[in-house]
């Protein structure tokens, strides 16, 4: 009998032995080493053991009787410490064994991030039964666990611990969960499902340090300073093939033990398989390919010709109730096409990636019934040209089911607010329709919904359509862009009604047709989200136009212009000297603008952080000349100097600018305060203008002097500066909350049906005015920061300069 020694009694070697004993019973004298004090069990079922849904006994693959029957000498709980290839012996902790053939199946080791404190009591990995038992022991209800890693393993650990009653937080470094298996949209749905079952999820979160007390774990500290207290910390951040033994024995290793298609290592008498190997540059982390390898390895041992061919793998998450499936390659790519299906009402998302007439990848969430069918199409390379149109509906599709474009509205609960101005919710509208109001006008008359600013009329019409069915013909509003059927108004109101707080959330719930939007919808969504959820939403620079991303105006030659604020058009000799010096240092063209300040043109991108630092040092901040935000507040000299001046127009202009700067708005917002009706500051063609008169101040809004020329219309006449400031803030906030992206105030006012409604909101209703001001101030607590000061740092200097300079290399 030939002597076969196997190192590692895991899932791969277990399967190989099954094949071997079947093909050549009695041909081998097998010795099986395992570092774990037990034989082969179904490792992937550890998660149900953790959650309590299964016991260890139920997941044992090979028991004592099995090893007996096949005459396997089991050396469990004994680690192999060396291989002597010259003498052909394996060295275990308890002694040597000689081999004719050797199989290395040592699997992989969980990766432990070497954070300070990683060796504290209470920090564990998730790999084997012992880890699982330690988690079960620590999982007292009410105790707290943190799981680092939002991949398959981390989430299964989190769900299991949660089922055992722990408070669980998942800390994930990437922007969405399971980023290697899921795209952003599916990641969002998964996150929502986990949050619903009480698991906290922090994405884009970087762990910094593990804190302890008397050698015992106390909390995880993130690099933003947050501390997450915990009694148990599970690190599930990835695995590394276990290669040390093979490497020491002088076998060729890369990331894993290198094997050929017959599973030979660089020594023909030594085979290797499982998670410890590297084949053709690939390493493995799921069992399906390992089972293929097991078959090949067994055939190689019995002398049968065979070849290992890697195939597509599919992933499912074993968390009861979170149905997701991913298979193949779902990256976008040359000549690839997406088919996306979303059913927001059911929380379903499906995406197929096609290349030519074949499906090459699939991601699905919520409804995974067809997953294996798609997986089959991917593996077999089936030509799907015949069924392309209906492919996404799966094998059962009979040619009838159509997708309901109004699903988002249909799914709103009765108490979802449709009309924000008048506080009308969906239920009231439905009741009115049932009572006989079957047109928009009738709804307006009976419920007041859409009777004010009118931005919800699209939604009201959709409620009509959903309720009346075919009896109502929906007027078509222009969608934002080709990525969606919804116009701006609907998206704005649905973001509020459904409390959507991220771009993937909006895209999923409102049925976006592309995976991540385009240059038209993304800036609009980014604005809506930051305006509606200033504290919850994080601004996304990649969804902004170049000027707002780089905080300077791009010029036609790719250089930038830099314009510091000059509050109310006032400056000082010191500021002018600093500007002059900066202009010389960075070789800028200097221009006095139409907005009462100075523009420095022709600055190179890599110089921006430097010129900002120089201007900051002289006390100047960004003029936001590049934003959809507050631009300038022009003033005239007023009572300080002018013989006609009635009020301190300069001072008021400065106060307004200091209050409002930094805020983002749907389009740019320009203001002016002028000292008398002679109007030297041109206040009557601004978005908001103030004309000072003897008895006080006349505020007017909705002017423009750009592509259209518009005189402002009167908003209010007030006696004090404070009222001017309050009404201006309230007006700006109302505009921020309800206008469409890229509508200047005059366009927004026209769409709301005139100034009447706005006057009621910001002038007459004092409580509402106060509420608008409060919301504005909350937003300013986040956004009134000088973007230049934040970016005049070494980190930005690097990010703003070229990644590499190849001007020398490329010449070779």
């Amino acid at each position, binding site marked *: 009998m030939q002597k076969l020694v196997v190192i590692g009694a895991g899932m791969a070697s277990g399967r190989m032995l099954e094949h071997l004993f079947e093909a050549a019973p009695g041909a081998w004298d097998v010795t099986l080493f395992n570092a774990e004090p037990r034989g082969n069990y179904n490792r992937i079922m550890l998660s149900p053991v953790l959650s309590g849904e299964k016991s260890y006994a139920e997941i044992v693959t090979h028991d004592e009787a099995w090893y007996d029957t096949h005459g396997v000498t089991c050396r469990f709980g004994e680690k192999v410490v060396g291989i002597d290839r010259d003498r052909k012996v394996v060295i275990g902790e308890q002694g040597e064994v000689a081999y004719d053939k050797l199989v290395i199946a040592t699997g992989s080791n969980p990766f432990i991030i070497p954070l300070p404190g990683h060796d504290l009591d209470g920090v564990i990995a998730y790999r084997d039964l012992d880890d699982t038992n330690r988690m079960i022991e620590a999982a007292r209800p009410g105790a707290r666990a943190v799981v680092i890693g939002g991949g398959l393993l981390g989430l299964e650990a989190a769900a299991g611990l949660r089922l055992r009653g722990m408070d669980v937080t998942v800390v994930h470094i990437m922007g969405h969960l399971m980023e290697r298996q899921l*795209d952003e949209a599916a990641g969002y749905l998964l996150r929502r499902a986990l949050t619903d079952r009480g698991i906290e999820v922090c994405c884009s979160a970087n762990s910094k340090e593990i804190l302890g007390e008397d050698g015992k774990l106390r909390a995880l500290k993130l690099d933003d300073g947050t501390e997450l207290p915990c009694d148990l910390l599970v690190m599930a951040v990835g695995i590394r093939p276990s290669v040390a033994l093979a490497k020491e024995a002088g076998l060729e290793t890369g990331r894993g033990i290198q094997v050929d298609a017959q599973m030979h290592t660089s020594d023909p008498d030594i085979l290797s398989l499982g998670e410890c190997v590297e084949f053709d540059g690939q390493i493995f982390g799921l069992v399906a390919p390992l089972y293929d390898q097991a078959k090949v390895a067994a055939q190689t041992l019995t002398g049968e010709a065979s070849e290992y061919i890697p195939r597509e793998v599919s992933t499912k998450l074993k968390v009861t109730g979170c149905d997701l499936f991913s298979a193949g390659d779902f990256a976008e790519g040359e000549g690839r096409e997406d088919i996306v299906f979303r059913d927001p009402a059911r929380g379903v998302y499906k995406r197929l990636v096609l290349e030519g007439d074949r499906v090459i990848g699939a991601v699905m969430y919520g409804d995974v019934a067809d997953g294996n069918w798609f997986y089959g199409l991917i593996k077999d390379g089936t030509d799907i040209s015949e069924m392309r149109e209906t492919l996404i509906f799966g094998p059962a599709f009979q040619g009838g089911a159509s997708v309901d474009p109004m699903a988002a509205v249909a799914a709103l609960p009765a108490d979802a607010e449709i009309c924000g101005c008048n506080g009308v919710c969906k239920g009231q509208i439905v009741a009115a329709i049932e009572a006989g109001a079957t047109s928009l006008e009738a709804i307006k008359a009976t419920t007041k919904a859409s009777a004010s600013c009118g931005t919800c009329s699209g939604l009201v019409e959709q409620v009509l359509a959903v309720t009346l069915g075919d009896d109502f013909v929906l007027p078509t509003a222009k969608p934002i862009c080709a990525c969606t059927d919804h116009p701006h108004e609907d998206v704005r109101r649905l973001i509020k009604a459904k409390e959507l707080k991220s771009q993937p959330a909006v895209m999923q719930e409102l049925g976006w047709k592309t995976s991540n939007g*385009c240059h038209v919808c993304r800036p609009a969504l980014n604005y809506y989200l930051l305006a509606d959820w200033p504290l919850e939403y994080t601004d996304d620079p*990649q969804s902004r136009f170049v000027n707002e991303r780089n905080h300077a105006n791009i010029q036609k030659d790719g250089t930038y212009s830099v314009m510091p604020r000059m509050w109310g058009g006032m400056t000082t000799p010191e500021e002018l000297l600093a500007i002059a010096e900066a202009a010389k240092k960075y070789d800028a063209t200097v221009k006095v603008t139409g907005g009462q300040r100075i523009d420095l043109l022709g600055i190179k991108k890599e110089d921006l952080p430097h010129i900002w630092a120089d201007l900051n040092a002289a006390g100047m901040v960004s003029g936001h000349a590049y934003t959809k935000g507050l631009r300038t507040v022009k003033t005239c000299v007023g009572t300080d100097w002018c013989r006609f001046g009635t009020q301190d127009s300069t001072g008021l202009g400065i106060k307004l600018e200091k209050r409002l700067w930094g805020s983002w708005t749907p389009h740019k917002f320009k203001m002016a305060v002028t000292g008398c009706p002679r109007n030297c500051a041109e206040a009557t063609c601004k978005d908001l203008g103030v004309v000072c008169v003897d008895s006080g101040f006349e505020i007017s809004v909705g002017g423009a002097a750009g592509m259209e020329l518009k005189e402002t219309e009167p908003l209010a006449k007030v006696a004090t500066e404070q009222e001017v400031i309050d009404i201006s803030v309230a007006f700006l906030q109302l505009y921020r909350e309800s206008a469409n992206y890229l509508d200047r105030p005059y366009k927004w006012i026209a769409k709301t049906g005139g100034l009447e409604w706005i006057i009621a909101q910001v002038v007459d209703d004092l409580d509402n005015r106060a509420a608008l001001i409060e919301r504005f101030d909350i937003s300013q607590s986040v956004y009134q920061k000088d973007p230049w000061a934040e970016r005049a740092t070494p980190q930005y200097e690097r990010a703003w300069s*070229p990644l590499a300079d190849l001007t020398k290399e490329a010449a070779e």
Partner: protein
Amino acid sequence: MSWIDIGALEDIPVQGARVIKTKMGCVAVFRTADDAVFALSDRCPHKGGPLSEGIVHGHKVTCPLHNWVFSLETGEAQGADEGQVPTYDLRVEAGRLLIDASKLAAQSAA
């Protein structure tokens, strides 16, 4: 082919770009939402806009100056516009970005 290391994948923001300087002008190196990377000339064929400053969506970029849209894969202008941006071979290995310098050199000779 001769591959040159130009930096780490992490140096490029997701859905963003950085430029590298070469003898033939700047080359924009893009990273998309699904972590694919592409290298294209940083000059828009329309009026020379810096494509590296455009909004990246899917495997496309929109020029920041006049909104032409280009495929990052082929460099071809999309929709009604006509134009072609030179592309370069780029790959990621162990988190490092490697660009094929032979094409950069070949073009400068031409």
